[in-house]
């Protein structure tokens, strides 16, 4: 990182690397009422203003990538949605697209199967966004909105449950197609529910834009300008709230996103309200897309599942998709057997951390919960440990014990960490 942006991810052993004008250091997490997810925030403050914020991640390494190397490609189809609790369908979507490409069946997948995959992804985006702005309202001290939005979220959860047999983890996709069909009677049952949900989300939008008690809390708070956004590279709604109109669905269309009508939502203000409105508008857009998909399903026919052999031929492929939180990227290496050689997941939350830390500079400490929530943190998929020596550029990857041992030695004998 350049001089303009001080290096984040610094260790704070004796406070020597804190910014000089800070007079207090506030620690949030990993166990804290705010934190649903284990992250450790170090906020340096002067009076009530934040001078600089730092983050420490790495409390929740579950080793999904390593576990995938010990399981077959078919088994991994059910392991990969567990990478994230909420965006399970999009992780599975990218995985099956990687496997489809490696197995060479990408062109044989029918339009109907692709539409069902898309429905699953869009339904997930709807319930993820509604969940997010409910929690945001809770963090801003507006609990009424939390209860109202989560009550209305049940509508889309019921639709997902009806289609897939599970509320949060639909797991409809398989390499080569989809597991279940959406028959006509189910689609007819879902359409009026989607209409109802659209009315409710419009009401939520009205509350967020008009109600003074929530709007004052979000407007002009945590502004991330377009220039800062370009330097800190946020993705997903965080970037779109700051005037970066980038969406993987538009830029690199996958499945059938180039065949149906939808608009890219972005705002230029860059404050928390803009991020919220991006998500609200995206929810409306996704509901509209879901309706289109259900209409298209009536007229399209096709085989749901193409047979994919358990052994995947040698090769590697990188695939990405737009998760509710941002850009999600998978890279798979196949070695000709039925297990992957290596599988890499780059989940969206990691890309948004730096922009969020930039957002905190100069804000009031009372606004921290709202700003920390703004990028929809999800650390279950974010954990990576790499230590970089700034002077030499040396990179080492170590475990926790080794880290502690090194840190204690460095402190005791007063020498460098490396």
């Amino acid at each position, binding site marked *: 990182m350049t001089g303009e942006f001080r290096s984040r991810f610094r260790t704070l052993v004796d406070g020597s690397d804190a910014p000089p004008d800070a007079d207090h250091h506030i620690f949030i997490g990993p166990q804290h009422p705010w934190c649903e997810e284990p992250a450790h925030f170090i906020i340096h403050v002067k009076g009530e203003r934040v001078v600089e914020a730092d983050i420490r991640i790495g409390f929740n390494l579950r080793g999904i990538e390593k576990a995938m190397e010990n399981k*077959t490609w078919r088994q991994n189809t059910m392991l990969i949605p567990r990478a994230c609790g909420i965006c399970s369908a999009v992780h599975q979507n990218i995985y099956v697209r990687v496997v489809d490409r490696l197995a060479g069946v990408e062109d044989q997948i029918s339009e109907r199967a692709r539409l069902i995959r898309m429905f699953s992804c869009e339904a997930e985006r709807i319930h993820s966004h509604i969940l997010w702005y409910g929690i945001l309202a809770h963090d801003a001290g507006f609990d009424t909105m939390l209860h109202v939005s989560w009550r209305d979220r049940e509508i889309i959860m019921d639709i997902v449950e009806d289609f897939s047999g*599970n509320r949060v983890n639909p797991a409809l996709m398989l390499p080569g197609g989809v597991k279940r069909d959406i028959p006509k009677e189910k689609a007819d049952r879902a359409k009026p529910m989607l209409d109802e949900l659209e009315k409710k989300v419009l009401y939520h939008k009205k509350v967020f834009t008009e109600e003074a008690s929530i709007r004052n809390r979000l407007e002009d708070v945590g502004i991330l300008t377009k220039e800062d956004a370009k330097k800190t590279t946020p993705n997903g709604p965080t970037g779109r709230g700051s005037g970066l109109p980038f969406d993987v669905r538009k830029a690199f269309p996958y499945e059938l996103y180039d065949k149906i009508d939808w608009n890219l939502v972005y705002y230029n203000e860059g404050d928390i309200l803009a991020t919220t409105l991006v998500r609200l508008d995206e929810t409306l857009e996704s509901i509209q897309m879901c309706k289109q998909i259900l209409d298209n399903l009536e007229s399209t026919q096709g085989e749901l599942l193409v047979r994919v052999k358990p052994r995947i031929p040698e090769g590697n492929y990188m695939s990405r998709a737009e998760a509710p939180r941002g850009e999600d990227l998978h890279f798979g290496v196949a070695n000709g057997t039925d297990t992957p050689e290596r599988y890499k997941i780059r989940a969206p939350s990691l890309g948004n951390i730096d922009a969020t830390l930039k957002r905190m500079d100069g804000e009031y400490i009372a606004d921290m919960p709202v700003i920390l929530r703004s990028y929809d943190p999800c650390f279950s998929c974010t954990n990576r440990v790499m230590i970089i020596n700034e002077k030499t550029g040396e990179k080492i990857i170590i475990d926790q014990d080794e880290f502690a041992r090194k840190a204690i030695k460095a402190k005791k004998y007063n020498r460098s960490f490396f």
Partner: protein
Amino acid sequence: MKKVLVMGGEALKNLAKGPVTKHVLKRIADHPPPEDIRTIPRIIEARCIMCGTCVTVCPTHCLGMEKDDKDNGMIWLQRAQCMWCGHCQTYCPKDAIHIDREPALSNSLFSFNNRQDYEMICASGSYKEEKADKKLEDLIEEGGKKLKYLEEFRG
């Protein structure tokens, strides 16, 4: 643009309605689990050819199998380990597996009763009675040891 009490209508409506939880409890009886809910697998013994596909595709290794040939063998299930993904149903070549839709299933699953954890879902030919029962007892005993160890660990 900014107003106060935009949600006032909602508040008044809720006052008239009374507590929401009461309505929910009333409604649970009218809302059985959906027809297509995914739960644990069941095997139709007449169709099963003991190919072992369900055992190899299972992501959680909750299915186990012993067999001599395609007519003689048994498949057992560790219910607590099954995550209800339905992979075995998808990949079964003979369409012998269907997914159980018993609505009271979730109650029995989380009972922490060791005896309910293991289940022989398919036993055919010479494995039918004695061998299957013995295996099931062995499994339950082994599971009991694990459970005991866990309890000691918890303290």
